[in-house]
């Protein structure tokens, strides 16, 4: 059974049909790209997958479970995590705390325990810190744990967003333009990190990206959106040689 099943998904904002009749299927452990020109509706798809927007029609299933009508924090608990096109870290929180927010679902100690430092509080808190440091190591951020997120350089902020999303223990990780604003070296490094994340955490990844080097370098399968509709799908090679895709990107 597919990890993510999207069937005939559509959403209208008043008279504007932002996404129409979109069907996708991603296998467990897949690394899939969602590409398309600006304004094609890619981020809108992410917003529907995470419950920020409620689709007008169609269905979304994660590992067989229905996601339509669920609230964003519930969908997060079910195993969908994301990053944002424009970075949305908690700037006034430390790097460590940003990732800890992601661990929110896992913490089981009660309010009283945490205020009075009773019972298993200390043990769990230490276990959490370790888990956070573990994740930070993957991104080479372990030395920055106490730095405020807003003081990190841009490239590391992008990485921290992925780290924070991973902390929620997702089955499906949605990356919205992870390489935006990166130079070719940083992009290369990011590609390695994404591959590593998939192997180490066994997550399924769907990413939006304009950087064709990244898309063709790591994605196994691509969906191409144009004007909210699915224009093409297939392996990167098939898709990029598809005349319709070339027209959509470059014009006639």
């Amino acid at each position, binding site marked *: 059974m597919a990890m993510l099943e999207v069937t005939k998904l559509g959403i209208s904002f008043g008279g504007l049909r932002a996404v129409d009749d979109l069907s996708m299927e991603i296998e467990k452990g897949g690394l899939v790209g969602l590409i398309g020109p600006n304004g094609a509706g890619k981020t809108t798809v992410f917003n529907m997958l*995470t419950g*920020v927007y409620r689709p007008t029609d169609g269905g979304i299933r994660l590992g067989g479970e229905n996601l339509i009508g669920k*609230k*964003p*924090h519930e969908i*997060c*608990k079910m195993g969908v*995590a*994301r990053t*944002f096109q424009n970075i*949305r*870290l*908690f*700037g*006034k*929180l430390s790097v460590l*705390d940003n990732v*800890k*927010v*992601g661990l*929110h*679902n896992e*913490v089981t*100690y009660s*309010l009283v325990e*945490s*205020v009075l430092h009773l019972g298993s509080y200390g043990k769990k808190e230490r276990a959490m810190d370790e888990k956070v440091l573990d994740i930070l190591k993957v991104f080479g951020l372990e030395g920055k744990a106490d730095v405020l997120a807003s003081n990190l350089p841009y490239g590391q902020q992008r990485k921290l967003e992925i780290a*924070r*999303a991973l902390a*929620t223990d997702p089955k499906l990780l949605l990356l919205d333009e992870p390489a935006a604003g990166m130079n070719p070296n940083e992009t290369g490094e990011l590609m390695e990190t994404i591959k590593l994340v998939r192997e180490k955490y066994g997550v399924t990844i769907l990413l939006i990206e304009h950087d064709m080097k990244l898309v063709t370098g790591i994605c196994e399968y691509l969906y191409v959106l144009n004007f909210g509709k699915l224009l093409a799908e297939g392996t990167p090679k098939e898709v990029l040689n598809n005349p319709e895709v070339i027209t959509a990107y470059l014009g006639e």
Partner: protein
Amino acid sequence: MTFLSYLISGISLGSVYAIIALGYTMVYGIAKMLNFAHGDVIMVGAYISFCATSYLGLSPLVSVVLAILVCTVLGIVIERLAYKPLRQAPALAVLITAIGVSYFLQNAALLIWKSDPKTFSAVAGGSIKLFGGELTISAVTIVTVVSCIVIMVGLTLFTGHTKMGTAMRAVSEDKGAAQLMGINVNTTISVTFAIGSGLAAIAGVLLCSAYPTLMPTTGSMPGIKAFTAAVFGGIGSIPGAMLGGILLGVIEIFSKAYISTQLSDAIVFAVLIVVLLVKPDGLLGKHVSEKV
């Protein structure tokens, strides 16, 4: 010695303002709204404590706990019924609703407890004398200052080191992103109101222990002053609310003692205006520049 005694009463009054201001500042920080009904929750807390001791004969400590419980529930109910439906509404609509809730609470209190002032008996009696009887510090003053310090330390630990505290800081920065990280924003806001209202109950009891006249409008002036204190210290900042509250209390008592009793409120607000002209974000507020 009189100076010292004025300073101590200033700090004591300021501590009450600070506890109230914490409620304003936390709710503002997290829900981004000004809860003008906060002052009236203080009044409800004081009435509950009054009824528990005078009519039910409970001990002062039990009455305080009861007042905290009632106000905590009241805070959650107010948020659910009056503010939650307006989460997406413009800020002005929420502000007007808060003023409405404030009048509602005052008039409900008028119906239940009538307009004649009640005499509140202090939760702690006695006093200590220092310097051969020249300086008297009442037990209420000590209790007030100590509670204020304990609350301040407790809240700082809570927001800094607990899961709910971290969630609160996350929600205060970016509701949307916090929600997508699995945080239930509604629960977080409810908890904030619960804490703020529980603190208001404590403030009500302490306030009426020092100034024992209890009426349905008792909470409104301290509420406004505590709001001023929160703005003075930098709204949204917990240490700011503390500092603002205590400074405001001290300024108020000093103006009453050395300048004029009648003008003391005017002086307090004049100081606020000057501070805001010089530092628009308040004493400890951080300047947030809008991205263009």
